[in-house]
């Protein structure tokens, strides 16, 4: 039985007790997936998994608070679930988790860049272990998986769901590399270069809040302080500084909580590389608090606790 | 006794002592601990703590002309026990430097001995005891200094008749030469 069939049958077994089960289906063309809310067995036919199933479905969980639902998660998505559970934002009793062992997902951005021109509507996609064969307007292009793999998958340390009621597939190895060249390159730049980079990038930001809305950990929703008058942290002025302030709020509220699923960056319509901020912050959290969000059900987010003697914080000589 | 005009304090002198010694003269509260521990007090004209006081009140002449600054043996007892962490022995040293530069030598024999010693070093690279004694006796006029010890010392071969001339004595001589030219202060 294929992984997909095993998953379908597992969902079928539990569907009766659940409001719905969240998975993926094909979107507007064969290259794009979209979330699928499975309510009946008939819906199950449309379920897909694999490299196109990019969405972190944990993002939807808080909206179903109080209802019993199921969710399909990849390894990275499962970290978000754990973090939400640790922060009491969802209840374990109301959740059935179908965990996957994941081989990685694609970056649509990289696919677009790898194709000679914007493909528009894709006619067919043939998925193999090596890559994707994409047919657009009768023309076929073969894209290597290594070229189009999402950044987060290149350094993925948790390919298998860390929490699940049903785990499907065989355990996958975590990636050997833990660092990304683009991240290191950026961090090595001078303050002035980085400053100029964000100035420019933030002048592109249209503050559509797609990054926030896609984020599984952004649970404030309608009460985000970036869009409130009381408190009034960010003005309506569309200036780089105000846009950056919003991003700083986002990064600050994710400190010690971000599971690095990459949804913010994926959702950004103007291609702002938000993960530069996330990955750097997470590295600091790891360095100071030896904490990696969403990897352990017993952990306390580092900013909600303290130690009297902080071994890794040095008094600066004043 | 000498009467000091406190209004005529030499502030430049105070500042110079402080700058050269990197010590804060004002922190001395005259507890006398330096004097209490100083083995040389019996030979001084002003006790150590009085020297400190005279510096505090800017009495340059009294300090630089005193015997005490020449008779300090740099034994560090004052520095070690000062409740205010003042390096008193260093201040005594600095006063002696300033007295030399000002041309004072109230304890002339002490100065001549130091000069003779350094001349010896400058000449041979190392101290040549018999040589420096000779120079000292000639320059101080105290030709009978320690003659009583000579037989005892000579009998035991404690005083070589020839200086040890080191190869790098030119290097050592150049140290003195550059020092005299540059007049390095510190």
């Amino acid at each position, binding site marked *: 039985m294929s992984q997909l069939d095993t998953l379908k049958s597992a969902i079928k077994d539990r569907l009766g007790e659940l409001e719905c089960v969240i998975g993926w289906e094909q979107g507007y063309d064969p290259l794009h997936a979209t979330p699928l809310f499975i309510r009946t067995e008939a819906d199950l036919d449309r379920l897909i998994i694999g490299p196109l199933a990019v969405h972190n479905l944990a993002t939807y969980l808080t909206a179903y608070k109080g209802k019993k639902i199921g969710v399909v998660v990849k390894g990275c998505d499962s970290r978000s679930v754990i973090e939400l559970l640790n922060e009491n934002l969802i209840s374990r009793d109301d959740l059935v988790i179908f965990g996957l062992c994941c081989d990685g997902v694609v970056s649509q*951005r990289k696919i677009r860049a790898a194709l000679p021109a914007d493909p528009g509507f894709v006619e067919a996609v043939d998925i193999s272990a090596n890559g994707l064969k994409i047919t657009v307007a009768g023309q076929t292009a073969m894209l290597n998986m290594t070229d189009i793999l999402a950044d987060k998958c290149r350094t993925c340390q948790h390919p298998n769901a860390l929490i699940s009621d049903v785990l499907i597939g065989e355990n996958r190895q975590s990636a050997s590399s833990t660092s990304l060249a683009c991240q290191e390159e950026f961090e090595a730049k001078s*303050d002035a270069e980085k400053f100029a980079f964000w100035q420019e990038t933030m002048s592109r930001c249209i503050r559509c809040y797609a990054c926030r809305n896609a984020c599984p950990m952004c649970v404030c929703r309608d009460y985000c302080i970036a869009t409130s008058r009381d408190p009034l942290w960010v003005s309506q002025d569309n200036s780089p500084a105000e846009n950056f302030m919003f991003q700083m709020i986002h990064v600050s509220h994710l400190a010690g909580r971000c599971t690095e699923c990459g949804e913010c960056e994926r959702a950004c319509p103007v291609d702002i*590389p938000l993960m530069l901020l996330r990955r750097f912050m997470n590295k600091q959290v790891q360095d100071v608090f030896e904490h990696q969000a969403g990897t352990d059900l017993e952990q306390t987010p580092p900013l909600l606790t*303290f130690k009297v003697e902080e071994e890794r914080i040095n008094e600066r000589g004043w | 006794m000498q009467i000091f005009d406190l209004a005529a304090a030499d502030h430049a002198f105070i500042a110079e002592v402080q700058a050269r010694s990197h010590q804060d003269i004002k922190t001395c509260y005259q507890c006398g601990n330096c004097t209490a521990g100083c083995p040389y007090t019996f030979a001084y004209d002003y006790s150590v703590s009085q020297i400190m006081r005279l510096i505090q009140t800017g009495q340059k002449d009294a300090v630089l002309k005193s015997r005490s600054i020449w008779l300090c043996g740099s034994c560090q007892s004052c520095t070690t026990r000062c409740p205010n962490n003042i390096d008193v022995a260093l201040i005594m040293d600095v006063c002696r430097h300033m007295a030399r530069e000002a041309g004072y030598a109230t304890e002339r024999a002490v100065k001549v001995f130091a000069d003779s010693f350094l001349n010896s070093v400058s000449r041979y690279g190392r101290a040549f005891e018999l040589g420096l004694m000779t120079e000292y006796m000639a320059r101080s006029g105290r030709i009978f200094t320690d003659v009583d010890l000579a037989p005892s010392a000579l009998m035991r071969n404690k005083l070589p008749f020839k200086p040890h001339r080191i190869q790098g004595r030119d290097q050592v001589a150049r140290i003195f030469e550059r020092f005299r030219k540059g007049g390095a202060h510190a």
Partner: protein
Amino acid sequence: MPAQDVRELRIVGFLCNWCSYGGADTAGVGRFSQPTDLRIIRVPCSGRIDPLFIVRALLNGADGVLVSGCHPRDCHYAEGNFYARRRLELLKRFLPVTGFDARRFEYTWVSASEGQRWQHVVTEFTRRIHELGPAPNFNPASEMDWNALALHAAQGQTCPCHG
């Protein structure tokens, strides 16, 4: 209002009421002279200081931000500075990726009795900020700069990740 005088840079201080604000008062009572650049915002506890206040100040053009609270273990509210230490340390370490010079932000501990220490902290931090000079504006300073930036952004630019 921006620092009006070229002799001054804009330094914002966030001080807890019980220790550091008291320490600054003690320095004042002792007439320990200090540079005038610093403007102090009083908060009850260093635990009240949201790192985002500091970010806000920097984005608004502050040249330096100084935070001071009670020494660890001495917090009037027992634990406030322990939380503050974590939050502020993380901000301090995070700033480099934003391009803000992390030296423009500092946090330390000064008790109500440490007037001289406060004088030292203020003097040293102000000296540091003057060495760094005025902070660059995140928002363009003139209309022309605005237009240049907009043009540059519109032309698209090379992003390190999506190259």
